[in-house]
């Protein structure tokens, strides 16, 4: 699971959960792989993200690097900054671990890089 995906996932599928966001990451294995940088994509996807959640997730995994805690202005024309965002969005990956619902503590496992957001039959 990439941090881009983490930024978009919630546990609002659970009964009684209002926002279920952000999910807390408990990482057992983290992998960093190389992914080609696409400036256009990163600057297009950035406004759709919750920056604070991304920063905290990156920090928790120990990959925040020089990423500032508040989103800078005019990032569209700052390839150096966008490259750092690209790194945490697409290159840092949780291979095994858990995602925890902030409201109920329900845990969702991540195995082989794939989060399992299925509920149990008694939860639906």
């Amino acid at each position, binding site marked *: 699971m990439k941090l881009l995906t983490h930024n*978009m996932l919630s546990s609002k*599928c659970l009964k009684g959960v209002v926002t279920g966001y952000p999910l807390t990451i408990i990482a057992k294995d983290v992998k960093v792989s190389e992914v080609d940088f*696409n400036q256009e994509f990163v600057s297009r996807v950035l406004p759709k993200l919750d920056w604070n959640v991304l920063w905290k997730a990156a920090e928790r995994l120990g990959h925040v690097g020089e990423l500032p805690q508040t989103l800078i202005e005019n990032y569209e024309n700052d390839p150096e900054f966008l490259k750092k965002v690209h790194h945490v969005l697409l290159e840092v990956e949780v291979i095994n671990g858990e995602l925890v619902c902030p409201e109920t503590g329900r845990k969702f496992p991540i195995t082989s890089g*794939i989060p399992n957001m299925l509920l149990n039959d*008694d939860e639906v």
Partner: protein
Amino acid sequence: MNALKTFNRYLLWFANEHVDFRLAEIQAILELYKIKAKWLEKPSPKPYWLVELPNENDAIQIASRSVTMRYIIELWGGATSMEDLHTELKSMPESKILQYCEEHLSFKVKVECYGNSQTAAEKVEKIDTFNYLPLKGKVKLKNPDVTFNLIEYWGMEPNNLPSKPYNVFFGRLIAHGQRDLITELSLKTRKFIGNTSMNSQLSLIMANQAKVQPGDLVFDPFVGSGSLLVAAAYYGAYVLGSDIDYLMLHGKTKQSRKQTRDKPRVDESIFENMKQYKCQNRYVDVVVADAALPPWRSSLVLDAIITDMPYGIRESAETIGSTKIQDGKHVVPENEIHIPSKIEYDFSKMLEDLFKFSLTHLKVGGRLVTWLPVLLCDYDPNELPMHRCLNLVSNCEQKLSTFTSRRLLTYEKIKEPELHEVGAFTVSYGAAFREKFYRHAQKLQKERAENRHNNREIVLSLSEP
């Protein structure tokens, strides 16, 4: 510029396949590249369409995406008889054609004959009638600098051939469509496929209908083996998928290919498919999730949703749930690994959930492209899911059997819905589709059996002495 003006007529030559999909595909491409096209003839099931385009680059862009089109030519002449075609070509000012006739430019003439056959000798004979063209270059059959196309159209009824072609066209080849991609992305050579993987041609058409562009974020909520995402990623989109089938996403279902049974399974995952086509940089993630209970946060915005839902015929349609309820409550045993039980996911409910999801998560201007199973005797276009925020752009049919087909629906989100509208949205289409399908199939089977029986009795009564 004036010289170019007379050259803005083009002929699109189509493959004789998925005829019903042509217009929707070409229109989506025209919108994608904001090309202003003027049809010289209303697009029809004929294998060619005539169009006016502002410039050659537009023709190249159409060809860069279309998979239903074989090639596009700059039209030099079009007539209802060979004589008229020659007259038209001869009257063309030389200044406009000389640039393609120069000595250093090799060339070839390709003769296309639709609805009739021709021998190689006849081809050469036809080509020779154009000997008045001032072509100075050498003939080169493989990769020439310039290709000319002579097209004869003999109509759509091979059993009712006219004495001469209805139309003849001559022009210069501008570009080939993307038919080669169909083979390049073919399921036959793909590492990971499932029972119902969409073939490459239809996947590419779907990506075109969705107006997928580089840098888009595209999602498939019934991703399966990821065949639709392959096409989207190939066109530059970043792709994300979800599926209820844990084993499928982890590549632990039945092997893709039977003959590899004795070998260990390697490289079978959606990510490996992306790698195979060098799209791995645009693979975001796949998530195990129930489409009835999407786990995405409300503010997620998608550029396109492309999907093929399981109808419960070839692939089971499932959602999490249980039929075992005790004392009004369903209890799952604690402290042991529990695999959630699944119940049937009715098609109308599935459609409804997909539409609610699209209303919430598509950007304005974004598209939903999805298939709808159809029982021909039961199809009513008025029953299709409709919402004032989702505009039905196209509806193309692919026949599957004598009594079924599937339709590719393309919706464009035209505005944001009010919150209460999403919750109140309902779909009636496809209720109990699976039951209806089997009931109908059984009925047909019974009828056929009865017919066979009756025929046999007739035969027997005839053969009696």
